[in-house]
């Protein structure tokens, strides 16, 4: 019994694949044998093989397209023309920029330059020189939600105490209807508004009186007698205090009248008169109507000029300086202890009297002294840096200019008060 060799069955794509590979000479000896066996036993497969072989032969006989004349020359000239701009130079350094990269880089650089110019506009040379020369030392204070002016502060305190006292008095609160409590708060607001207007009128009156007094008596503290210079004398202080007390009394009287209908408001009278509010028990709940709040704003006192090397701000009066303008400059004469003895506004415009009061209340400390506290070291460092900084040509020119000027009085400094 003879063993018949197994005939592989190849159909469809499998046969096509084998035929295709055989036409390319890609078959292994085993695959060739298998295909031969199939072709020997399958006439259809043989016909398929012949047809595909003829097709491939015909395709391979297709003539290659003839290239146009001087194709390579045109390609070379085109490439060298488009890539000549620095191309071979870049290639020497192993850099092969893609097309348009140079244009893109230039566009990006232009955008960056414009952005830098827009975001940092060039400062005028004069301000740079002034800053180099003066070197201001800024001290910033953040004011909490408080009303400007002492009378307003006192009135607000009185109002709060009134509300608390009204809430603390259980009998009064229990007996008073809610309408009376609301009317009491409204009355307090009216009183506060009247006190404010009174305070303004008082400040204006005081300014006019001070101007009249200035004509009569020349201050003896500050040597250079400027036209609008104001010296601190005790008479003026007393006059101002007396007027403030009188205003407070008037306010308290009005509060008493306004609180005739509301017993809770009667507790506000002593506070409006400047008395210390009695210790009231802790409020059981927040007031029925929220009081008006003042936006917190910051202000700064800047010591300018040569004075910044010697003096720094140590303490400022409580409250926010009432400034009409964003910034006001003063020449201040200091006592050896750093207290303000004379104030002379440097601005041409009229200065608010309350601002003058504020400046008078400033206390300065010598730079580097123990009084300066923690900030003294910083100010000292500023001063030292300014001294040790190598001067460039421009600063030397400024120093020469300053040398021509007369030496400043060491007890006088220039102060700028500004609000933000």
């Amino acid at each position: 019994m003879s063993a018949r060799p197994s005939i592989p069955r190849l159909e469809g794509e499998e046969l096509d694949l084998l035929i295709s590979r055989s036409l390319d000479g890609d078959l292994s000896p085993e695959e060739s044998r298998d295909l031969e066996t199939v072709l020997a036993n399958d006439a259809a497969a043989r016909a398929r093989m012949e047809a595909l072989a003829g097709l491939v032969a015909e395709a391979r006989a297709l003539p290659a397209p003839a290239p146009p004349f001087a194709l390579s020359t045109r390609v070379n000239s085109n490439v060298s023309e488009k890539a000549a701009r620095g191309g071979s130079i870049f290639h020497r350094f192993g850099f092969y920029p893609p097309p348009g990269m140079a244009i893109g880089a230039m566009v990006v650089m232009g955008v960056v330059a414009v952005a830098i110019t827009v975001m940092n506009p060039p400062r005028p040379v004069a301000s740079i020189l002034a800053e180099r020369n003066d070197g201001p030392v800024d001290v910033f204070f953040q004011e909490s939600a408080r009303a400007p002016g002492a009378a307003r502060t006192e009135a607000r305190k009185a109002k709060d105490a009134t509300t608390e006292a009204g809430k603390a008095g259980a009998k009064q609160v229990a007996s008073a209807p809610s309408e009376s409590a609301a009317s009491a708060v409204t009355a307090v607001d009216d009183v506060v508004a009247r006190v404010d207007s009174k305070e303004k009128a008082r400040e204006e009156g005081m300014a006019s009186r001070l101007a009249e007094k200035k004509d009569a008596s020349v201050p003896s503290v500050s040597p250079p007698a400027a036209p609008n210079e104001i010296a601190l004398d005790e008479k003026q202080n007393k006059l101002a205090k007396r007027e403030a007390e009188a205003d407070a009394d008037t306010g308290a009287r009005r509060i008493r009248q306004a609180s005739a209908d509301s017993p809770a408001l009667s507790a506000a009278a002593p506070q409006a008169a400047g008395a210390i509010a009695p210790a009231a028990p802790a409020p059981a709940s927040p007031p029925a109507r929220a009081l008006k709040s003042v936006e917190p704003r910051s202000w700064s006192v800047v010591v300018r000029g040569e004075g910044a090397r010697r003096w720094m701000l140590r303490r400022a009066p409580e409250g926010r300086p009432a400034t009409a303008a964003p910034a006001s400059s003063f020449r201040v004469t200091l006592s050896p202890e750093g207290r303000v003895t004379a104030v002379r506004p440097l601005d041409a415009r009229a200065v608010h009297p309350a601002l003058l009061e504020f400046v008078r209340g400033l206390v300065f400390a010598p730079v580097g002294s123990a009084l300066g506290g923690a900030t003294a070291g910083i100010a000292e460092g500023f001063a030292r840096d300014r001294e040790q900084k190598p001067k460039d040509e421009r600063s030397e020119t400024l120093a020469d200019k300053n040398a021509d000027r007369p030496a400043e009085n060491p007890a006088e400094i220039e102060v700028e008060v500004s609000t933000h």
Partner: protein
Amino acid sequence: MPARILAFDASRGEEPRVRMAPVKTAAVPAQRHPVERDWPGDEIALSRFLAGDVLGFEQIVRYYSTMVFSLAARLVGPADAEDVVQETFLRAYHGLGKFRGDSSLKTWLYAIALNRARARMGTLGRLRAVFTQGRSREDDPFASLDDATDPAASPEENAVLKERRVRLRAAIRALPEEFRAAVLLRDLEGLSYEEVADVLAVPIGTVRSRLARGRALLKEKLS
């Protein structure tokens, strides 16, 4: 008598192991394009170019432009082929610095040309197809490819030959893109399986199957 299979790889310079009598096949020519006489080879030309010598790139262009043009003309037609060649070598100029030598320079250039031709066929080709639809054969951009005649043949034979070529080219162009590229690169441009795989960035097995299916489809279209 069983048919004997021609089993040799002409691209590797092997001799056929079995002589085939009945089956008519066409061996792949070892070199289908004229050889540049002063061609120094890929490595030398490339190193020259990378060193900043313009002559290196000019040699590359002179040697490969004919091959690239041939492929481009078969893909997009002779009219647009020169543009494809220009774009191919311009891209090659800017990209040769990143050429790592994983494949041959020839297959790298073919790959660029194929991509450029695809891009051109994708936009301009569709537009042109819209505007030339239903016109005479004179508008066929591929018609000039078959103008070559055999001087030894009679005019009738030349006419029949041209007609067969036109049909064959039309059938090749009608193939799906993946099969058409494989058939063009292997049967018309004479690339080996490995080179076709490099150009198409596919495994060799995929090249084999694409060729087989492409040839079968071609046979169906012509029958």
